């Protein structure tokens, strides 16, 4: 876990990302703090998921630099990623969680403890031996959260985790995310659900057409966004920009 004194966690300096000739992100610049929930918002195609993947290390920037501010003494910053549609392995729920922490090579008892803890936090105890593929959409996403939590990450990256879920399931996921943030895990959430963003955010990064247009604390963002595109977005208007 990160020391409470650490304010800056990760900085993007002039980061661009292009793939197959398409510029998905251009000159993105911001610094994320080490506490609370940061939400990344913007219209479809704005580059939100790309940004999250760059943070996860799943993609490498075409130009620019991403800096992680490690507190003194910490070996590295661990992140865990939850995808919008999780890949569920053909095995039981607990085996899925166990699999997720296998690269950590923990001793048996420690691994079992982590699996057990994750099941509890995500209310999956009663399904521990169920074939994971038979779970409902909401249960599968809770499993994806459990897998991420079992890694005990410093940063939890969530890519539109509730986009396909009903309100009850969405509520369950949000509660888990909030609990994580309370315990000191940094949560970075990509969402297109403004209501969810309002419920969860400490601060918001707003993207439009591959550019980071705004980075504001939640209250000021939702009351009075700085940028026109953000204002349009929150008001439900479509902005068409020439990139």
């Amino acid at each position, binding site marked *: 876990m990160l020391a409470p004194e650490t304010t800056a966690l990760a900085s993007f300096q002039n980061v661009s990302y292009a793939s197959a000739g398409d510029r998905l992100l251009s000159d993105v610049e911001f610094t994320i703090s080490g506490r609370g929930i940061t939400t990344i918002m913007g219209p479809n195609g704005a580059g939100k998921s790309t940004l999250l993947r760059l943070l*996860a290390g*799943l993609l490498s920037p075409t130009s620019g630099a991403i800096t992680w501010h490690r507190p003194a003494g910490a070996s590295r910053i661990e992140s*865990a*990623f939850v*995808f919008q549609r*999780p*890949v569920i*392995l*053909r*095995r*039981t729920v607990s085996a899925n969680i166990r*699999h*997720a922490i*296998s*690269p950590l090579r923990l001793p048996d008892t420690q691994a079992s403890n982590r699996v057990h803890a994750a099941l509890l936090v995500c209310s999956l105890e009663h399904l521990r*031996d*169920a*074939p994971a593929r038979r779970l409902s959409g909401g249960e599968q996403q809770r499993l994806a959260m459990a897998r991420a939590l079992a890694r005990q990450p410093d940063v939890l990256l969530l890519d539109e985790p509730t986009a396909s879920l009903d309100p009850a399931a969405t509520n369950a996921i949000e509660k888990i995310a909030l609990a994580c943030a309370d315990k000191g895990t940094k949560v970075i959430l990509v969402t297109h659900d403004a209501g969810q963003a309002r419920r969860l955010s400490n601060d918001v990064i707003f993207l439009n057409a591959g550019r980071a247009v705004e980075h504001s604390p939640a209250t000021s963002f939702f009351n009075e966004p700085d940028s026109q595109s953000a204002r349009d977005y929150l008001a439900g208007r479509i902005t068409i920009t020439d990139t």
Partner: protein
Amino acid sequence: MSEATQALYLAVKLVTSMDAGLVEIVLLSLKVSLLAVAVACAIGLPLGALLAISRFRGRRLLISVNNALMGLPPVVVGLAVYLMLSRSGPFGVFGLLYTPTAMIIAQTLLVLPIVAALSRQTIEDLNAEYDEYLRSLDMGLIGRLKTLLWDGRASLATAAIAGLGRAIAEVGAVIIVGGNIDHVTRVMTTAIALETSKGDLALALALGLVLVTIALALNAAVEILRAGAERKLHAGA
């Protein structure tokens, strides 16, 4: 009585009387082919998986060659293995020619390309689906292979069965390297070839019926095992 009816009658008689000669031949057929498939899977499944997830120059060529080898004529494989194991050949000193071991070697070589090719296709599809998730877990190569092979087990089992079908049905390879020696290297298919060459077509056909029945029984057994395993996963072992 037509040849076909005669064959049916003979087949039933052979099986119900548990004819000692028949039992011996059947057991040897099963031993040779099952072992060959086991070895071919032990090598071929991981090899196919590795081919599926690796990227290197010549990969496409290797995949094409592998696919082409699926169509290797058994008699050609038999000939090649004979030349290897012959006393005048490089491995003659082991004295393996005309033994069941030689037959297992030949059938393993026949089955290996099938198992590897089907494994490659299955794992390649699975890898496309799982790739991002496994990368997000920092999963190493071995971990990735283990994950994909286990999760793909249903399709891989089918690959193994395809291999078994090829092995148990072939005669060209085992007859050359085994020599069809009575009580030593005579299996179902070589026995059928022998009876045909003796003109005893009814008996040959009867043996053929027994062979087909055994193949069906084997497949049924595998299916039952598979369903049982799925059920176990259900009930929470």
